[in-house]
């Protein structure tokens, strides 16, 4: 998307994102791609494993939510860092929107995980939440990002808000690998890679990888579309609020 040739002047905001035609091409490609992924996810035969049975197919949906969330938080942290370097307000807008959409994917990952565990491992026990280390750490992770949004809404002065939020966002991003990889692997968990459990690479059938990796790419593409839409809207809102630019 390109804005007016005047670019960023004073308090104005300009968006140096991908051109609109590239956005449209990627959007259409992601729509076709994800449709194919969903078809393959349900139609391809997979090896039958006790207890898991068809729910093994959730690998194509539940796990990409987390990959997408981490990609989104990484994008968000990158723009926060660039904000601190350049003080360009578009970086603040991008960091906020990437974190927002990323948090949505995180909540979806959490809820899908709860449903998966409830009707697969906790059958007959009526357990919806069992404090599985990875699940708990993921919830803590979302609370850390929830605090980012709360922090933003508590500061009125835009430049101060952008600066403090960017610093906090870098801290939040730094906790991601520890909460989602290091800590859960030290404890007993349903998740692969935890104590005694084989890691993903040793237990996943080739036919499932054939769907899983495209699913990760597809959902990250979907994140990019939703994020770009929200950035475009936020930029328009900023321009509408600034009487000089209307």
């Amino acid at each position, binding site marked *: 998307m390109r804005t007016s040739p005047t670019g960023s002047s004073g308090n104005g905001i300009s968006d140096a994102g991908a051109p609109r035609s590239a956005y449209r091409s990627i959007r259409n490609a992601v729509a076709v791609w994800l449709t194919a992924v969903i078809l393959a996810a349900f139609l391809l035969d997979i090896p039958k494993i006790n207890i898991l049975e068809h729910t093994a197919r959730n690998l194509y949906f539940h796990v990409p939510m987390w990959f997408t969330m981490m990609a989104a938080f990484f994008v968000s942290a990158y723009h926060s860092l660039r904000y601190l370097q350049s003080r360009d307000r578009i970086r603040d807008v991008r960091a906020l929107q990437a974190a927002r959409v990323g948090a949505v994917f995180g909540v979806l990952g959490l809820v899908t995980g709860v449903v998966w565990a409830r009707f697969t491992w906790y059958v007959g026990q009526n357990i919806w939440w069992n404090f599985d280390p990875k699940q708990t750490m993921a919830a803590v992770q979302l609370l850390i990002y929830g605090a980012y949004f709360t922090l933003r809404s508590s500061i009125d002065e835009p430049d101060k808000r952008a600066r403090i939020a960017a610093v906090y966002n870098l801290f939040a991003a730094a906790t991601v690998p520890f909460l989602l990889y290091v800590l859960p692997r030290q404890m007993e968990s349903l998740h692969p890679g935890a104590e005694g459990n084989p890691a993903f690479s040793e237990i996943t059938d080739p036919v499932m990888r054939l769907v899983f990796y495209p699913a990760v790419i597809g959902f990250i593409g979907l994140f990019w579309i*939703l994020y770009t839409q929200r950035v475009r*809207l936020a930029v328009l*809102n900023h321009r509408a609020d600034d009487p000089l630019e209307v």
Partner: protein
Amino acid sequence: MTIHPLQEADSTAQSTAYDTLWTGQEEVPVQESTGLERVMLAEDKLYVVLAVVLIIWIGLALLVFRTDRRLDRLERTMDERIAEKDTGA
């Protein structure tokens, strides 16, 4: 609905280390399966996958609706501003 026994592993299936009930939960009493559970466990638990896909679909649709509402608000602001300009001129 029966629970898959912990010890009785199916030798033909590819069983994995985490493919059992979590051992930390052994003392939890097993209850009769409820109606919801019977639905979810039908067809080799395929409905669990359906539930997961629906949750993702509904969640993303809600995000799109929220974005749409912000777009509506912006449209109204712009319309009002244009109307102000017209009456002022």
